[in-house]
């Protein structure tokens, strides 16, 4: 007897796929991705728990909305820039207690802190034609001692054969910076002046303007590449209100301690290239390089390499290496010399020092419950040329779950 099942399946599939008109119903396809990230530094320094959730929805044929929310809790101790000190002079706290920073007495080189951050990014992308698309973005991030607002517009134009995409983007940001007590210290102000009541001003503001030009293209059936040039100017209060710098004698013993001071403008530029290629054995590599330079004299090289190998049943493993090197900012000093006049700008922030860092890790992905589950474990090692704390080691773990809905 012959099978009619296929014909019947087609007939039922046809009738059931017909929508009966419903008020307000639009065709939408959702993608959601939720992720937990742990970042933990060795020696009880910074610990971060981060939850990220993203949702992306197609509205009709030409629009996509995306929403990304991130919630962080950060606790631990971070280097202030001051040298390790053996005198037990009571230390003025850069914050007024409670939340935010607290210096443990006798160890001004590290401060305890805790903070939470909530950030939201919203995006809207609209196809104006088959080959022209604009993405609009807005972001807000709020912490106890920092607020950031930003907006961006990115234009994407494809060539008619869709081999090349030209991208131009502009963005602006407005950040407000303050200590958790509400103010910012006087740059290069002595921490202990006025009997431990250094001068404080109101919140600092930072404005950023950014432009980007990029081109991405299909190289061949298995390769795509992208090159970007970005330029960003920042102006306003660019100093870190919690960072300190010590003035030491010839023996390296701390004599005085100052709040750091950075220039009130910064021009950052970068060239970024990425290549994605499928090898003959179907492994996929992501290789990217960035050259960055700014007018604080920091320039850096970053190489990032991921190698994805597909395993059975939709699982994959992806080792990852990232190498980074930067030069120091021209006003970076380990400490200042006692007896010499104070410079206008000085910072002992380890992030402005000459540094090399390496990240090694791997990601494992598998299908689960109709979506994809990914686990990632990485080790970050940073080494600094002069900073008081000359290394930083951290473990990164991330678990993410992504699912798509019709």
């Amino acid at each position, binding site marked *: 007897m012959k099978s009619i099942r296929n014909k019947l399946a087609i*007939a039922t599939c046809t009738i059931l*796929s017909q929508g009966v008109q419903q008020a307000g119903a639009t065709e939408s396809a959702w993608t959601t991705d939720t992720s937990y990230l742990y970042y933990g530094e060795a020696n009880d320094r910074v610990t971060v728990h981060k939850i990220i959730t993203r949702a992306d929805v197609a509205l009709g*044929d030409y629009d996509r909305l995306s929403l990304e929310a991130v919630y962080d809790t950060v606790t631990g101790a971070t280097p202030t820039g001051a040298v390790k000190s053996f005198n037990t002079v009571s230390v003025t706290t850069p914050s007024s207690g409670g939340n935010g920073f607290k210096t443990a007495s006798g160890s001004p080189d590290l401060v305890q802190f805790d903070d939470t951050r909530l950030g939201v990014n919203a995006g809207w992308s609209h196809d104006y034609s088959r080959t022209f698309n604009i993405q609009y973005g807005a972001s807000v991030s709020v912490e106890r001692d920092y607020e950031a607002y930003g907006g961006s517009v990115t234009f994407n134009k494809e060539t008619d054969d*869709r081999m090349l995409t030209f991208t131009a983007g502009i963005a602006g940001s407005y950040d407000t910076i303050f200590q958790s007590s509400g103010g910012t210290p006087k740059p290069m102000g002595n921490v202990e002046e006025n009997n431990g009541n250094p001068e404080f001003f109101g919140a600092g503001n930072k404005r950023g303007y950014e432009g980007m030009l990029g081109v991405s293209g299909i190289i061949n059936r298995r390769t795509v590449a992208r090159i970007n040039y970005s330029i960003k100017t920042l102006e306003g209060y660019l100093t870190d209100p919690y960072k300190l710098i010590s003035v030491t004698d010839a023996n390296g013993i701390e004599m005085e301690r100052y709040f750091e001071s950075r220039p009130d403008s910064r021009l950052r530029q970068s060239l970024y290239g990425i290549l994605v290629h499928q090898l003959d054995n179907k492994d996929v590599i992501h290789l990217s390089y960035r050259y960055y330079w700014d007018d604080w004299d920091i320039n850096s090289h970053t190489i990032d390499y991921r190698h994805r190998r597909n395993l059975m049943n939709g699982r994959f493993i992806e080792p990852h290496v990232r190498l980074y090197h930067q030069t120091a900012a021209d006003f970076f000093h380990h400490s200042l010399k006692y007896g010499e006049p104070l410079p206008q700008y000085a910072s002992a922030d380890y992030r402005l020092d000459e540094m090399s860092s390496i990240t090694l890790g791997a990601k494992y992905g598998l299908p689960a419950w109709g979506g994809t589950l990914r686990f990632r474990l990485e080790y970050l090692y940073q080494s600094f040329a002069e900073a008081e704390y000359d290394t930083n080691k951290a473990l990164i773990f991330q678990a993410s779950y992504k699912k798509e809905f019709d």
Partner: protein
Amino acid sequence: MLKRALCVVIVSALLGLLLCSSTAVAGEKALRFRLPGISGVVDLAKFRGKVVYLDFWASWCIPCRKSFPWMNMLQARYKEKGFEVIAVSLDENPGDATAFLRRYPAAFTVAFDRRGKVAEAYGLKVMPTSYLIDKNGLVTARFEGFNSSHKKETESAIEELLAK
């Protein structure tokens, strides 16, 4: 069904393509082709006298998934009136196409153009692209991409051609 499709695809190497000029433009004659299909050779010339919706698709093309139930509906709705859907798979690996067809069954004619020769001749720019061909074998419309506005537009165009 799968085995047959694979056999047919292998035999396809032996079949010649009858292609004439370069790009298919509305108003011009639809380029003739002969391709292996799921149930035997698909020869566009044999559809002369019918209104044909010629669709180029691939298993990895996401909008194509949405188009299949709709094309099944078109076929069911207008077949009696002298209408046919021909869906040409451009998958390089026909196994991908047959796996797709198991998930999204097709009630219409399916052909395989694994080397993309016909797509090339039709000058495809977008996946999916479809052509509406009238009873005399003339291309009357070309649709790029697949979306909801496309559905209405196409259906009224088909009805118009069938009424002629």
